């Protein structure tokens, strides 16, 4: 088996301590959470940090809370905890749909939500789910706490806005409040990275879509979102034909790359197909607000 290069190691006693360590060591330091994105890269020596700052002891970053009409997810929450949470399953079917097909059950035991988001792999599923849910990321740094929308969190493959001395601490998701959500993924095999995936959240008033969030994974969508398709759907009836058209628009506006998982034309087709399917499923799960209320 391949093994990492030599590295130094510090254990953070608190978020503040982690920030202090990040400032001390600079960009050669990396936060170590579950390690299930970072350690595989280190073993293949694609990434060779000088120092690891282990935050696994910061159990205060591991939580799932409802507050102020939001679900607040501590960044150190393990994937398995998100999947096991009944609260999350009831409020956000999209997250359970996604978690069920992220990696495998053993990896989910230790990999963290924050770790996956900060790895920022274009094929990472929760990025699209949080984009569809229009979530917010909270970061702590030397200059205090700041918020960034999920749709502005990623700046490119494997790149986020998290600063060199910042720590992602929390993800906030507005409760769906009657909206329906779903996530659908195509992979070559259980546990494989997606060839393509789509997540959606929709809100209905009667038959009409009042708001929609659509996220796309591994399909070259800007910020993992299908904004043009969302704009199209706002105010339209949730008919099969409109949902299909939304799928087409999503496909027109993404730039998938050909690779071993599939050629670009197939992925573009998946963008369309999965978007319309996931919208149909989200619509079927929505509890429409009666018009006139």
């Amino acid at each position, binding site marked *: *088996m*391949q*093994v*990492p*290069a*030599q*590295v*130094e*190691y510090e254990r953070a006693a608190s978020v503040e301590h982690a920030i202090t360590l990040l400032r001390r060591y600079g960009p050669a330091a990396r936060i*170590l959470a579950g*390690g*299930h994105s970072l*350690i*595989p890269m*280190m*073993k*293949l020596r694609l990434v060779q940090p000088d120092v*690891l700052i*282990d935050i*696994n002891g910061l159990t205060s970053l591991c939580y799932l809370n409802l507050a102020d009409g939001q679900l607040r997810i501590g960044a150190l929450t393990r994937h*398995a905890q998100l999947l096991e949470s009944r609260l999350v399953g009831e409020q956000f079917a999209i997250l359970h749909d996604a978690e069920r097909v992220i*990696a*495998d*059950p*053993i*990896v989910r*035991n*230790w990999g963290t939500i924050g770790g996956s988001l900060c790895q920022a792999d274009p094929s990472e599923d929760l990025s699209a789910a949080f984009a569809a849910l229009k979530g917010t990321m909270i970061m702590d740094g030397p200059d205090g706490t700041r918020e960034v929308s999920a749709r502005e969190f990623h700046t490119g493959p494997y790149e986020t806005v998290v600063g060199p001395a910042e720590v992602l601490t929390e993800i906030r998701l507005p409760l769906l409040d009657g909206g329906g959500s779903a996530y659908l993924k195509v992979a070559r095999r*259980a*546990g494989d990275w997606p060839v393509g995936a789509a997540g959606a959240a929709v809100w209905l008033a009667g038959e009409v879509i009042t708001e929609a969030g659509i996220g796309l994974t591994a399909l070259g969508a800007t910020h993992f979102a299908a904004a043009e398709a969302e704009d199209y759907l706002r105010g339209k009836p949730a008919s099969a034909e409109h949902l299909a058209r939304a799928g087409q628009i999503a496909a027109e506006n993404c730039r998938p790359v050909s690779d071993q998982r599939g050629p670009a034309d197939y992925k573009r087709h998946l963008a369309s197909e999965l978007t319309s399917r996931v919208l149909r499923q989200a619509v079927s799960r929505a509890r429409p607000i009666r018009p006139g209320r």
Partner: protein
Amino acid sequence: MKVTVTVNGVEHARDVEPRLLLVHFLRDDLGLTGTHWGCDTSNCGACVVWLDELPVKSCTVLAVMADGRRIQTVEGLARDGRLDPVQQGFAACHGLQCGFCTPGMMLTARWLLDRDPCPTPERVREAISGQICRCTGYENIVKSILWAASHDG
């Protein structure tokens, strides 16, 4: 770095490099070779052990991350010389051939049955879906785990 790890109920203190993988710590430093490895990319699951009662892939965990924690390996499955029902099930139902994936499969099975004493075959397959077997086609592994479920004390 000094680490103290409790493995199968026994405390071990060692000085290790931060980069040392938990699987190598168990195999090479502690001589517990029942935990295996089979890939470079955290896919195969031959290295599964329990870390604080959770199955993890020990090839993707650093030994230093296990400091102060509890590990269980296949060597700790039997209690007082008595085989765990999972071990008995694998032997009774031909759930192993070359034996290389077996320790990891059994530890995942034990964890599953502790939480879900009567799993469906589908649930069993899902629970082991992160682990590869090249010999059995999984058929008898599933049978072995269901046997253990119906023979758990």
